[in-house]
């Protein structure tokens, strides 16, 4: 039987069934799923920033943030529904509430967040119910933080080695990226003079994203390989360059419209590349049985088989 020898990782000799995957790779489509991950993050961080702007009295920034949060949640929902095999049944997402299912938690969070950002944006546009609008904005700050991070759990809570093993860094990667995305979006939609916090967020988020990504790849070792190889590797490298560049530019973007545009677009592109790259890396890690078999075999060989304590 095929006893595959990987030349790059000589230690990873392992056995498999005709080299076929043990796992089913994620079936989520492109661009639906990565777009949702990006938009959800953007909307979430924008919600948090709207709340912060409200609390710090930055009205213009708050308006942009409210609109961005609502737009991100709405567009994200569209992508999410389109991703479903049976889109007409999207309401079934609210059939049960399950803490064991990040997607269930996420669905309820998205529902709340969409509603809150809708009220906030609606109020801002129409001027109606200003108090409710303000309250919704503040509340969307909370749901927004959840929105920006739960997607990391969504991916990590799978058997996909590159995701599951990345459970520590992925939330930072995603929240950083969300912050950068929202910062970039607000930077692009707010007069420069008023967009200082947005630029700061873009820069900080970008740094966090780059650092978290780097840490993850290093810690994961063999299982981190898919983030470095093939299409996922190219996407992740592009993401890092764009995010790093965009983040650095953000620190100086206040000086010109062009710099702002360059920074905002680079960060946005970087954030998108991150989502596409992570999705692709997950797919690649699930498709190659090495990433499934080798760590498990190592565990067994070390006399430390998996167990489920306390359940």
């Amino acid at each position: 039987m095929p006893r595959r020898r990987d030349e790059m990782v000589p230690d990873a000799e392992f056995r498999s069934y005709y080299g076929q995957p043990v796992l089913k790779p994620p079936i989520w489509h492109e661009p639906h799923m990565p777009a949702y991950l990006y938009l959800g993050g953007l909307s979430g961080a924008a919600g948090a920033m709207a709340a912060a702007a409200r609390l710090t009295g930055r009205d213009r920034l708050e308006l942009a943030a409210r609109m961005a949060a609502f737009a991100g949640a709405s567009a994200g929902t569209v992508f999410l529904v389109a991703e479903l095999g049976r889109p007409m049944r999207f309401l079934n997402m609210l059939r049960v509430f399950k803490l064991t299912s990040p997607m269930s938690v996420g669905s309820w969070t998205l529902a709340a967040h969409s509603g809150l950002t809708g009220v906030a944006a609606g109020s801002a546009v129409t001027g109606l119910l200003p108090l409710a609008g303000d309250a919704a904005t503040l509340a969307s700050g909370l749901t927004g933080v959840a929105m920006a991070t739960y997607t990391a759990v969504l991916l990590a809570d799978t058997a996909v080695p590159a995701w599951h093993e990345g459970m520590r860094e992925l939330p930072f990667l995603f929240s950083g990226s969300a912050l950068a995305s929202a910062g970039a979006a607000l930077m692009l939609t707010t007069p420069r003079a008023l967009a200082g916090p947005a630029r700061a967020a873009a820069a900080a988020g970008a740094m966090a994203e780059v650092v978290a990504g780097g840490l993850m790849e290093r810690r994961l070792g063999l299982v981190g390989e898919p983030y470095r190889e093939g299409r996922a590797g190219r996407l992740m490298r592009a993401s890092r360059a764009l995010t790093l560049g965009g983040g650095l530019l953000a620190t100086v973007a206040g000086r010109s419209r062009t710099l702002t545009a360059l920074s905002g677009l680079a960060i946005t592109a970087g954030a998108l590349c991150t989502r596409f790259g992570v999705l692709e890396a997950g797919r690649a890690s699930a498709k190659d049985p090495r990433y499934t078999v080798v760590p498990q075999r190592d565990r067994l060989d070390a006399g430390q088989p998996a167990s489920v304590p306390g359940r």
Partner: protein
Amino acid sequence: MGAGWLSRWPVIRQLKGEDGRGQAARSARTDALRPRVEGADTVARSVCPYCAVGCGQLVYVKDGRVTQIEGDPGSPISRGRLCPKGSASKQLVTHPGRQTTVLYRRPHGTEWEPLDLETAMDMIADRVVRTRRETWQQTHEGQEVRRTLGIAGLGGATLDNEENYLMKKLYTALGAIQVENQARI
């Protein structure tokens, strides 16, 4: 809809203490699920048509359609078990590609043509009678043979004994001797 729908909403049932991964999640359709063979109108005791082991089959029919074929647990031969072919028997008798109408290809024709079953039977009978007359051998090398070498038959090892019996009887009465089947091949 209305209150009934609300009370069946799993979230409400979860709040009432039902398990969201078990009881609460069940749909009405799930609650009503039964094996479809329970609703069969008739069950025929049959035998698998593939190899010669002779596994017992139960054929379930509902509303004039075969709804399931599975092993007959009473059979001392098969004890209810079937191989992949036997297990595919329902598809054998119900698959959409099965040919269910008579087809006719005229001499030198390039396509099939439809033909009425009764007409086909008459045409075949005419041809048997004609060919038999045209190729009749009363004697061969001076011996009585009373036969035709103009008509031959091949088949079939998946036919019933009763069918083979009528075939052999008719062919022999007509003087057709080149009657063969899979057992030779």
